[in-house]
């Protein structure tokens, strides 16, 4: 059996809301958060878990981290059922919630780590070794004696990651770890996750809205919408389904004769630059190239795929999410 096995998971929530503005009455509404979700993940995989807000991603993570009990369905991680015997189960997992702090706010980071050492009963040697390893990989050295509240968001996220990995969990849940981080911090964080996944064969399930995270880290991606699994496979295969248009930007020597180009390419001019978009399926790229050369002498040219966020937005729209 695979390392993570999820079969037919269902979870409903009951929400009470006002019937209408100003009404004193409230009505019950049943929201299906997960509908018959199934998947398998092998040990050492790095899987991206995406979907619009409210798709059921966090619900899945909560169930798999033993916090929430599903209404029906089964799940096993390393042969253990998460919501049974929570205390035993959680020894083997690590969780980072991007928007929730696990370390103590007012005490030096190291003191929080020492508490975690005692919580997970990590032997002192193993603890020292692991802490050194993580401190180096995450560049945390000078921050260990600093209270958490004085750290920047990026530093704090690195410190949180270190805390969640001290006990060498076999499985790490990351819930929007790059939220609010600057470009440098994001890149550093991604490098670290790749390293941890490769060096320690830690299985990672990454929930995010940042498609760059997925593109940079996850060979496999699962898409969730309205509580159902809609896609499971490689990111590029997913994108190619929706990625129909390319943008090409050309700079000509002298004034080009654009009348040779077929209509419907959405041509726009920006000073010397000519920009147009096309669908390689109806107009193969080599054919377009030939046409562009007929229009004039090309000095410089770039072809760009669609912006990944736009693609995902298109995908969500097409999947009716």
């Amino acid at each position: 059996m695979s390392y993570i096995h999820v079969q037919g998971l269902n979870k409903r929530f009951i929400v009470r809301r006002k019937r209408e503005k100003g009404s004193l009455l409230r009505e019950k509404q049943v929201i299906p958060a997960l509908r018959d979700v199934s998947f398998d993940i092998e040990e050492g995989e790095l899987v991206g878990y995406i979907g619009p807000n409210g798709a059921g991603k966090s619900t899945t993570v909560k169930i798999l981290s033993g916090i929430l009990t599903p209404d029906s369905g089964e799940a096993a991680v390393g042969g253990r059922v998460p919501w049974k015997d929570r205390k035993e189960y959680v020894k083997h997992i690590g969780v980072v919630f991007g928007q929730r702090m696990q370390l103590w706010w007012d005490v030096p980071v190291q003191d929080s780590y020492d508490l975690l050492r005692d919580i997970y009963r990590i032997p002192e040697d193993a603890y020292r070794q692991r802490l050194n390893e993580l401190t180096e990989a995450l560049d945390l050295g000078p921050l260990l004696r600093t209270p958490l509240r004085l750290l920047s968001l990026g530093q704090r996220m690195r410190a949180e990651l270190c805390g969640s990995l001290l006990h060498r969990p076999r499985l790490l849940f990351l819930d929007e770890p790059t939220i609010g981080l600057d470009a440098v911090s994001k890149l550093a964080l991604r490098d670290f996750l790749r390293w941890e996944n490769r060096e320690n064969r830690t299985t990672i399930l990454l929930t995010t809205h940042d498609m760059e995270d997925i593109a940079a880290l996850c060979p496999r991606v699962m898409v969730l919408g309205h509580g159902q699994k809609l896609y499971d496979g490689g990111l590029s295969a997913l994108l190619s389904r929706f990625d129909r248009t390319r943008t090409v930007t050309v700079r000509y020597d002298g004034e080009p004769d654009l009348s040779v180009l077929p209509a419907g390419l959405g041509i726009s001019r920006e000073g010397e630059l000519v920009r147009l978009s096309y669908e390689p399926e109806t107009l193969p790229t080599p054919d377009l190239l030939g046409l562009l050369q007929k229009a004039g002498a090309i000095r410089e040219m770039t072809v760009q795929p669609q912006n990944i966020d736009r693609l995902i937005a298109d995908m969500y729209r097409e999947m009716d999410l």
Partner: protein
Amino acid sequence: MRAYLSVFRLRRRLETQYRGAALGGIICQVFFGLILIALYRALYAGKPQALPFPHVATYVWLQQAFFRMLLASDADLMDKIRTGGIACDLCRPVNLYGFYYARILAQKLMGSLLRGVPMLVFAALLPEGWGIAPPASLPALLLSLAALALGLGCVSALENITMAFTMRTLDFRGMQAMLNLLMMVLSGNILPLTLFPDSWQPVITALPYAQLLDAPIRLYTGEYALSRAGGILLIQAAWTAALILLGLAMWHKNQRRMIIQGG
């Protein structure tokens, strides 16, 4: 002007969202009224003059010195429950009741020592009738310290029960206000329990709240004879054990039905 009207309207609407809290507030205030009347009735019916005044002053100082032991809720902990930060703690291989009990205990212990010791030094320097009197005897002092330790264990168990209620209602104010009021009155913080009528004594001293500070203080002043100390400590220990068991059961039940809201 529109901005002020608008914020007025929005806040008014928000207030109607907390119907549970409003109901809690009503119950709490009615309860407060009843308790206060009972308190004054007790004062009128009792014979306060029969008690030597230095005892009363000592009682008051010890109550004030260890005030932090009674009314100190861990704001971090309350926040965790309200905002869902408790999810992080649920991912730890620990029993949450024990984990939080230890937190509460540490806070109450250090909080009251930090404030209590300097306060007692100050109170000892005051003239007789204003200040704190020395303990009845050395054994009385030692026994009262033991009783204080048990009282600390007992009050931490009580607070963990408040915490368990908070997990059910998510808004801790109503329940907490009520439990705090009960604690203030029945632990003797507002009016020393020693001033209550004799006919009340068997009941109020048997309640858990009397175990927190009242029992240790009466051992200190010698109002409880040394021969009764064993029985007093036993009652304290029994309440502490019972409240811990109750809290454990409540947490256990809560954990089964818990939902961490939002992403």
